[in-house]
């Protein structure tokens, strides 16, 4: 359980984090979303005792990170892909963490295998790609099988196969009871994994809700038809909100079965029927842009 209460951080005159509060619960993947510069990284670093808050609290299982006994066994963290000595091998990097935190070193090869780095274990990190560094950061985070995971932009630098793997990995951990907090500035990355999303902009929470709720709000259908005018009129009668763009109709308030019935009634031929995929992305943009005072 991660609990952030009224957390505030000023860097000189800049309020990087401004009275932020949210919680991340066990068994859930919590997406921590916001545009670049929203204060995500600063918040995570305050959670991990690396940055001292100006005011407020950031607690992990009721304790400050610095007060945890053997923190590596309680909280796994992957913060940035660059924090490795280029001259040290991946295996030695993990062995150092094991020694310093009193964890048995047998877990090293296991996490290297788990993150797909078994073949690179003996190579110096200086020769690693960004994706490999991300994998090594993840391997470090899960080394001691901690019940809480805090990951800052873990998908950066991963290829599509890596992102797919990461989603499954985080889902698996959360299903096993872990508290997983994962930050991102790209909504699509967490859209398929997160149970709960906390959206921040300018250091403040602008939305804190289950993902399903946001998806529900944004839901809409894309309908392409050979008879747009007839179908639009029929959908309107069925109580749907229709936005027509040539032969493409963006429909909300009516489900797919409703569209089918309307098409049958209007005698309209459908050429495409599907979910409006950009709906959640639009909600995210609207929420964060509104806070920034710009147009969505």
């Amino acid at each position, binding site marked *: 359980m991660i609990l952030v209460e009224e957390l505030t951080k000023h860097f000189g005159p800049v309020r990087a984090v401004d009275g932020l509060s949210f919680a991340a619960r066990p068994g859930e993947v919590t997406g921590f979303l916001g545009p670049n510069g929203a204060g995500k990284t600063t918040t995570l670093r305050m959670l991990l005792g*690396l940055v001292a808050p100006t005011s407020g609290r950031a607690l992990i299982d009721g304790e400050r990170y610095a007060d945890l006994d053997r*923190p*590596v066994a309680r909280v796994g963290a992957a*913060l*940035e892909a660059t924090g490795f*000595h*280029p001259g040290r091998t991946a295996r030695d*990097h993990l062995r*150092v963490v094991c020694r*310093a935190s009193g964890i048995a070193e047998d877990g090293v090869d296991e996490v290297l295998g788990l993150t797909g780095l078994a073949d690179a274990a003996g190579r110096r990190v200086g020769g690693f790609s960004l994706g490999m560094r991300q994998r090594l950061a993840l391997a470090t985070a899960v080394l001691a099988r901690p019940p809480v995971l805090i990951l800052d932009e873990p998908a950066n630098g991963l290829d599509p196969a890596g992102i797919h793997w990461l989603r499954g990995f985080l889902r698996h951990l959360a299903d096993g009871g872990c508290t997983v907090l994962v930050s991102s500035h790209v909504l699509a990355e967490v859209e398929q994994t997160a149970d709960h999303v906390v959206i921040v902009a300018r250091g403040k929470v602008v939305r804190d809700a289950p993902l399903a709720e946001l998806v529900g709000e944004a839901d809409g259908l894309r309908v392409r038809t050979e008879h747009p005018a007839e179908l639009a009129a029929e959908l309107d009668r069925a109580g749907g909100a229709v936005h027509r763009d040539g032969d493409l109709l963006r429909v909300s308030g009516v489900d797919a079965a409703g569209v089918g019935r309307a098409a049958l009634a209007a005698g309209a031929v459908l050429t495409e029927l599907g979910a409006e995929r950009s709906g959640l992305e639009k909600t995210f943009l609207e929420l964060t842009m509104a806070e920034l005072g710009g147009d969505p």
Partner: protein
Amino acid sequence: MIALVRAELLKIRSTRMWLGMLALSLGFTLLGLGFYIALAGVEMNGEAALPPVTDPATVRGFYAAASAGTLFMMILGIIGITGEYRYQTITQAFLVTPRRYRLLAAKLVAYFLFGLAFGVANVLVTVAVALPALAVKGGSTSLLDNDVPTILGGTVLAMGLYALVGLGLGALVRNQVAAIIVAVGWAQLVEAILTVALPSVGQWLPAGAVRAITRANIGFGGGGELDTLPAWGGAALLLAYGLAFAAIATFTTVRRDIT
């Protein structure tokens, strides 16, 4: 704490930087020793460049070459902490050990131990070269006379303490290049001048402390005429420098946000 020290020792061993520092310190030792071997008792312009090997001061000079590379131990210590900031590995280090003073304490111990090991290596190489050279030139081949045990033992201790001083300095300065420039500039310029110009002040500086511990002047000329602290005083002085730097760093630079 023992676990943290072991982790720090593994950190040092798992990159190759220490090999470079060892090569440099051995190189300086052999260079100094080479001059002594070449010039001891040799006449230049009708005068002896250095007293012959039958002179105890020359024997001391042979073995004192072992401590010529102490500056590289200081640099090793500096890199030991500034490298963590440079490569941003300090984030991981503080995640593992959020009570930062404990990490710094473990590093001080680890680098002291590593410096002692370097000192042993320098001493072994020095003896391996100096002993046969003295034998060939007809000098004393005893490792017990002429203050040799003090010089060699002092060199080992001085190397350990110099690594510790470097670590404290590095923690305070944080910037690797700046810290190394400060250390080298201080040792090669400020200290060299002060030692000659104001020996009463010079004895309280790191190089003066090394002179006190090893009972030998680095380089040419006898060490007898310079003001020098007792050996224990020199060791305490170096320890005090290292711990004072580290203590100030704990309450200033080490507490800063890691962003």
